[in-house]
């Protein structure tokens, strides 16, 4: 559908994807009405620092915001905050708002993001039990980040481990509970899991894997302990829950837009309704380098899909789809991930994890599909190119640190 004559565009959700869509629409020359409606009270801000520098108090709040408030006025963007969208009326092309009122659209971008999974155990609603997703969560958590306090983190994913690193650096007594037999089990290989477990333990974090939480104990409605299924009691002044996220797809689903663990979109970020787009955590998109679709929970994905949706609405050429990439900062470790490692059939470790500078390459049928690089930008950046090229790589060459990554990449790309 040609939407180049659209004169009313509504963006639901002011996260990374929504903010990018606004910027790309204006930068792309769109001069019509543009409205952002978001359920949070704050202007669009970066989420990654919430579990890193901002949580640690090393970053001023104003540096979280993508743009200062006057930018939205300068760009003639109507911003409606603290207002969830209630319903999408696709027939009449309206978004109904929770507090009354409605917005007409010619094109709609759903960038509603995701929400943390709720802890299904008793005690989940006690005072002192927190998610870590929004700025408001960090505002609640931070006053309790005091040296000597006991923090229990449920879930050893990236959010949980990043928070553990921050809390340890601030002098808290930290225990991480993970149901799986290893940390980061859902997202990476055993070699990386072992590395991070070793690092966190060396920093004084207590990590319990294979730990089944039975419930949280409280007194006077304040959390006091986590109780495991085997009866183990772990004292807690504060509990962080990081057990994954769920896509906020209900708005689309209720409007009859196709969803399946995320709002289904094509390469242009377009949903089953040609006037409606979805971008970011809430969308399930074609993963063009992998021949399948899926949901990606990352900054890169949010930015890329925000750009794709804007380009499609404006009738511009589709921007190139980059290899998916991610990063995580823990202590002085920078993990950079390129590609998606699921379904690898071979793993090659380049360098020695003991040096805290190494990379794990994931291959499938001799083709590089992903890398986890610790303090190793060359391995990360070269892999991004190699993954997109589909080049074949010899495992013994990849693992040979006497050959520079630059030379390995050049040879493989020339072959």
């Amino acid at each position: 559908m040609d939407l180049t004559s659209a004169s009313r565009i509504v963006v639901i959700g002011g996260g990374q994807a929504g903010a990018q869509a606004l910027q790309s629409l204006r930068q792309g020359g769109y001069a019509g009405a543009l409205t952002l409606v978001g359920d949070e009270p704050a202007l669009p801000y970066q989420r990654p620092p919430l579990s890193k520098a901002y949580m640690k108090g090393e970053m001023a709040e104003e540096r979280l915001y993508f743009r200062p408030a006057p930018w939205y006025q300068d760009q003639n963007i109507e911003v409606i905050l603290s207002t969830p969208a209630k319903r999408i009326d696709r027939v009449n092309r309206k978004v109904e708002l929770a507090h009354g009122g409605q917005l007409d659209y010619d094109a709609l971008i759903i960038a509603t993001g995701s929400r943390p999974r709720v802890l299904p155990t008793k005690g989940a609603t006690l005072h002192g039990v927190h998610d870590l997703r929004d700025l408001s969560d960090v505002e609640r958590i931070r006053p309790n980040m005091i040296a000597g306090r006991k923090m229990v983190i449920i879930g050893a994913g990236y959010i949980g481990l990043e928070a553990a690193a921050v809390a340890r650096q601030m002098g808290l007594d930290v225990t991480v509970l993970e149901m799986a037999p290893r940390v980061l089990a859902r997202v990476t290989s055993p070699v990386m899991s072992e590395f991070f477990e070793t690092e966190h333990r060396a920093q004084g974090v207590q990590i319990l894997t294979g730990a089944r939480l039975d419930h949280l104990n409280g007194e006077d409605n304040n959390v006091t302990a986590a109780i495991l299924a085997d009866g183990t009691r772990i004292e807690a002044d504060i509990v962080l829950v990081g057990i994954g996220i769920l896509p906020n797809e209900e708005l689309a689903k209720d409007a009859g837009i196709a969803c399946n663990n995320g709002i289904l979109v094509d390469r242009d970020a377009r949903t089953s309704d040609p006037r409606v787009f979805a971008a970011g955590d809430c969308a399930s998109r074609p993963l063009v380098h992998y021949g399948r679709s899926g949901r990606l929970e990352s900054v890169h994905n949010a930015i890329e899909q925000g750009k794709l949706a804007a380009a499609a609405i404006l009738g511009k050429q589709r921007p190139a789809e980059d290899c998916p990439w991610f990063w995580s900062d823990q202590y002085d470790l920078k993990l950079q991930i390129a590609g998606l490692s699921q379904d690898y059939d071979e793993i090659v470790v380049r360098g020695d994890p003991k040096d805290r500078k190494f990379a794990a390459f994931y291959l499938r049928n001799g083709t590089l599909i992903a890398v986890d690089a610790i303090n190793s930008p060359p391995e990360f950046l070269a892999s991004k190119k190699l993954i997109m090229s589909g080049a074949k790589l010899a495992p013994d060459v990849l693992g040979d640190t006497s050959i520079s990554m630059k030379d390995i990449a050049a040879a493989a790309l020339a072959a």
Partner: protein
Amino acid sequence: MTKIIYIDNDGTERVVEATNGESVMEAAVKNSIPGIDADCGGACACATCHVYVDASFMDKVGEQQEMEKSMLDFAENVQPNSRLSCQITISDALDGLKVTTPESQH
């Protein structure tokens, strides 16, 4: 306020009044300077804020850290005056700093 001048690959100049303490990347993003995407928000993770620093300021913008060096090693069209703008902190000494954005970022 410190004056920073951003130059497009086609020569267009944009002057920004920046705040000391923020990075050359942050000042660019806040002022919608094209060609500086800064996808990672300044975590030195993406190399999308690459700039060329004017020769007269090369000794004032500070040394590259190891991380930045290796990121730049793989960026497009790297020159001896290449820097990641997220790693340059604005101070009085940088008043009048000129940086040019590479063509590949446009």
